[in-house]
């Protein structure tokens, strides 16, 4: 129960950070990505501020046997660079550059009531569903194809 309250409060603080930093304003995001135009370096300071804090918190967490309100840490363990990672990040970057919105600021900006943001968020949710449908179909066909031949391992 406690951890649900802390999750909610973390969400509030995260949103305030996004709003204060300028991340909820596509004009700032697109200005930051416009390295070859009128570059607005502000958002580099967001990254520096966030990483400065989190870097220390992560180091500290390594000394803890478990988090304070949960039985264990659930951190990503993979370290391999695969095509999905790079392709996915590339596609995400295109959407980010087109709109000036990434997921956190878009969800926060829903509260503004702007229809454009609602359309973006609906499309983003649809994009996530499409990904899981595609993965399910691929997984199903792979199981089917793998039956006669062991050599049909991951493409």
């Amino acid at each position, binding site marked *: 129960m406690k951890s649900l309250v802390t*999750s909610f409060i973390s969400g509030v603080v*995260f*949103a305030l950070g996004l709003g*204060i*930093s300028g991340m909820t304003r596509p004009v700032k995001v697109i200005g930051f990505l416009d390295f070859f135009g009128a570059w607005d370096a502000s958002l580099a300071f967001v990254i520096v501020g966030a990483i400065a804090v989190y870097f220390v918190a992560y180091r500290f967490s390594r000394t803890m046997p478990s988090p304070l309100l949960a039985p264990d840490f659930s951190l990503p363990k993979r370290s391999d660079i695969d095509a999905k990672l790079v392709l996915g990040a590339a596609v995400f970057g295109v959407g980010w550059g087109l709109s000036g919105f990434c997921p956190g600021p*878009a969800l926060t900006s829903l509260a503004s009531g702007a229809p454009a943001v609602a359309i973006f968020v609906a499309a983003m949710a649809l994009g996530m569903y499409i990904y899981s449908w595609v993965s399910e179909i691929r997984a199903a066909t792979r199981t089917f194809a793998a039956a006669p031949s062991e050599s049909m391992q991951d493409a």
Partner: protein
Amino acid sequence: MHNFTPFASFFGGVLIGLSASAMLLLDGKIAGISGILAGVLKPVKGDWVWRACFLAGLFAGGLLLGKLLPGAFDFGLIRPLPLLAIAGLAVGFGTRLGSGCTSGHGVCGVSRLSPRSLVATATFIFTGALTVYLLNHLAGGSL
């Protein structure tokens, strides 16, 4: 360089870092927004309520911003709706395929010096910049 806001941006970044740190130290979770959202859209038993609470917090924070700092929603640049819809699809699909976004890879992963997150972050900043370049300099910024 106009509208340069290094102090506000740094302070906002510190708040984002504090929020993500609280998720890590208290709950042992990575504050990756795309992953948190995906886990609410396709809920897994026992692992979605905290996600919903975090997202509710994001929305509540948005409401607070609307009252206290309405300039946060002075978007300044809203692309035409069809372009926004395409962008939303790309962001949703791409963040799932690439297992993260600006928060999970860019903040949490880069801070952990995760090789996957370093590669992902360099990649999405590169394609984001390329997209902005093509839109601004080839399409004449008319969109």
